[in-house]
């Protein structure tokens, strides 16, 4: 075989370097296997984890008994399980939830042993008991990185996975672009774990880091893997929209909630009076999000497309004392920075925050494709249609450990590494270099913005059939731009425009999944809101939508929900 690319052989390959990926690496390293991590960004300096404020949810009884936090012994893994499934609108794969609640306490405990300090225990919305062990994403990653570096793990940063390689029906590694040199590298692996996080960057407004463009979802889709619950992205109702320095920062919601702020439209009206006159801004998160969304969509928002979160009714001293409390240190700089523009009024909007859906996995974190495993946000099922606060980090730790173990055990059993298909590599190479070599065409920066605007306008927080059909039509048109993408700057070294060009196909793939699944689900459930089908339809829709590529087409079908202990409410 005459491939010009460097081939790096490993037993367990992990794509993604943050909470799920590092946890998987630590676990796999306990076995007699060679472990490699590749990441588009840099370890502990990219991805979703570091932006977490952060809480890891475990049952309150274990929080008390195992971690020494002031937990409530009336709680149990069983009650935690129930709250997760109720929040998820019964869409959860209950087998995955059982594993999560069972293994979460041990994962939190071992983080403590590795040096992570759980500072407090909070009760978050949707949880019956205080279950959220509080720390920060940065502290968590410092601990996980230190643990990974104790093991003999090969780490390749600035390395963008482009496409998975297959031999027969199994995954045997990945082709990646070395962003630092512009060269392709082939990582040949016995087992491959996707830990690439979500895809919230397909939306114009998001709280997430820039890497989250759905690369893992799209790569897996292209080799025929199944995805589930893609119609359920989660939105944070009110993060900062302006000024730019705090754009996407969730501190706004926290300040608004803690200080009883008012949400005002452009007429100065407290519009929640029309939605929930009793509770007003203290309403539930879903009502708040929908109310804000409708104000903006119907033209009653700010010129920049947000609404106003006002503290103008409060004396300055109350606000100052609040932001100066030591436990509010993470809010202080955002508040101070926002004040540059206006005192006491924040401009906010809903922001894409988390992907509940993702790859179909079983309790061993195996996907539907042999040799391919998934952990963390890229994996669907555990959160159903709406994740509870704190479960994202729990998911990374529980599934990271399982995926690491399963992948290592699988790798030990694989005798034959499989043959690299030269044609696959050539096709990937051609697709990768085309936008760089093309002399003329469309700008990836422009197309990226068009995707994000389309996602926001038509596949956002409140949907209807017409908008979704328009979106699918527009997505098809945008797909025609992929073979015309042209990177204006031709340097092969650290070329951000080139990376963005390569992300476009992935972003469109994920957006299409959401739009098609959202159109198919003719009801309102969990985070999926259809204004043309405002009711939850338990008669017809107690099932998951599965997405899979077949003969080059995106195919959607339904599958019964997986129930172990908690039956959904009876129909009628």
């Amino acid at each position, binding site marked *: 075989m005459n491939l010009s690319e460097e081939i790096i052989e490993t037993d367990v390959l992990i794509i993604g370097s943050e909470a799920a990926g590092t946890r998987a690496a630590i676990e796999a390293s306990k076995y007699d296997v060679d472990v490699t991590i590749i990441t588009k*960004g840099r370890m502990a300096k*990219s991805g979703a984890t*570091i932006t977490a404020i952060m809480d890891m949810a475990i049952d309150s009884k274990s929080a008390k008994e195992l971690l020494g936090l002031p937990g409530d012994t009336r709680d149990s893994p069983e009650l935690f399980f129930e709250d997760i499934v109720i929040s998820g609108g019964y869409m959860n794969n209950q087998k995955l939830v059982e594993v999560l609640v069972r293994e979460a306490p041990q994962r939190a405990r071992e983080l403590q042993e590795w040096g992570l300090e759980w500072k407090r225990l909070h009760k978050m919305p949707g949880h019956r008991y205080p279950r959220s062990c509080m720390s920060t994403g*940065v502290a968590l990653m410092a601990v996980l990185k230190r643990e990974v570096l104790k093991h003999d793990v090969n780490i390749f940063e600035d390395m963008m996975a482009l496409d998975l390689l297959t031999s027969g029906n199994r995954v045997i590694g990945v082709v990646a672009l070395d962003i630092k040199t512009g060269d392709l590298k082939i990582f040949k692996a016995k087992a491959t774990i996707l830990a690439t996080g979500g895809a919230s960057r397909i939306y114009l407004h998001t709280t997430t880091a820039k890497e989250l463009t759905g690369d893992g979802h799209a790569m897996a889709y292209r080799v025929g893997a199944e995805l589930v619950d893609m119609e359920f992205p989660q939105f944070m109702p009110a993060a900062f929209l302006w000024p*730019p320095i*705090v754009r*996407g920062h969730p501190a706004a919601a926290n300040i608004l909630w803690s200080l009883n702020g008012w949400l005002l439209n452009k007429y100065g009206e407290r519009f929640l009076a029309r939605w929930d006159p009793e509770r007003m801004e203290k309403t539930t998160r879903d009502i708040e999000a929908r109310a804000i969304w409708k104000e903006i969509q119907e033209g009653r928002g700010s010129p920049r497309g947000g609404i106003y979160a006002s503290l103008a009714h409060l004396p300055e001293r109350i606000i100052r004392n609040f932001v100066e409390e030591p436990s509010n240190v993470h809010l202080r*700089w955002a508040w101070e920075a926002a004040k540059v523009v206006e005192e006491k009024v924040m401009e906010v909007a809903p922001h894409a925050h988390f992907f509940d859906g993702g790859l179909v996995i079983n309790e061993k974190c195996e996907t539907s494709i042999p040799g391919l495993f998934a952990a963390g946000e890229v994996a669907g099922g555990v959160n159903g249609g709406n994740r509870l606060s704190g479960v994202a980090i729990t998911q990374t730790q529980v599934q990271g450990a399982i995926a690491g173990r399963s992948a290592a055990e699988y790798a030990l059993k694989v005798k034959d590494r499989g043959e690299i298909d030269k044609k696959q590599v050539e096709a990937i190479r051609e697709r990768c270099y085309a936008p760089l070599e093309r002399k003329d065409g469309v700008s990836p920066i422009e197309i990226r913005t068009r995707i994000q605007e389309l996602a926001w306008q038509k596949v956002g927080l409140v949907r209807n059939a017409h908008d979704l059909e328009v979106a699918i039509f527009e997505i098809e048109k945008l797909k025609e731009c992929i073979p015309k993408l042209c990177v204006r700057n031709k*340097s092969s070294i650290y070329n*951000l425009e080139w990376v963005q060009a390569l992300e476009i196909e992935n972003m469109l793939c994920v957006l299409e999944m959401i739009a098609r699944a959202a159109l198919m689900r003719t009801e309102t459930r969990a985070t999926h809101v259809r204004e043309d089908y405002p009711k939850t339809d338990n008669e017809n829709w107690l099932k998951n939508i599965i997405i899979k590529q077949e003969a080059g087409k995106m195919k959607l079908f339904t599958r019964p929900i997986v129930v172990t202990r908690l039956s959904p409410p009876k129909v009628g």
Partner: protein
Amino acid sequence: MKELSEPMKTIKVKVFRYDPKKDEKGRYETYEVPITPGMSVLDVLDYIYANIDSSLSYYYSCHRGYNACCMLVVNGKIIRPCTTLATEDMTIEPLKGRKIIKDLVVESDLKQ
């Protein structure tokens, strides 16, 4: 540093540039950037990248000050560009003491 209060104003930004494939040594390029109050140094780099010169390389991720991933040197001082307000007359350079990969991107400090 004086904070800007007037809406929309054009500032001059001097940015260190170096492409190891083309340049023998680093050079500086000056860009004119319209800024509004509340724009960070990183927002200025984003503006240059998206609207003036997409060949500018810089490392960032969360955009919100959670960690030190995007650290740079502005007017001789090490700062976090995502949480530092843009000012007039900025000279933006990469962190010192590490190998420059391109422009403002330096080698990762993973094992340090």
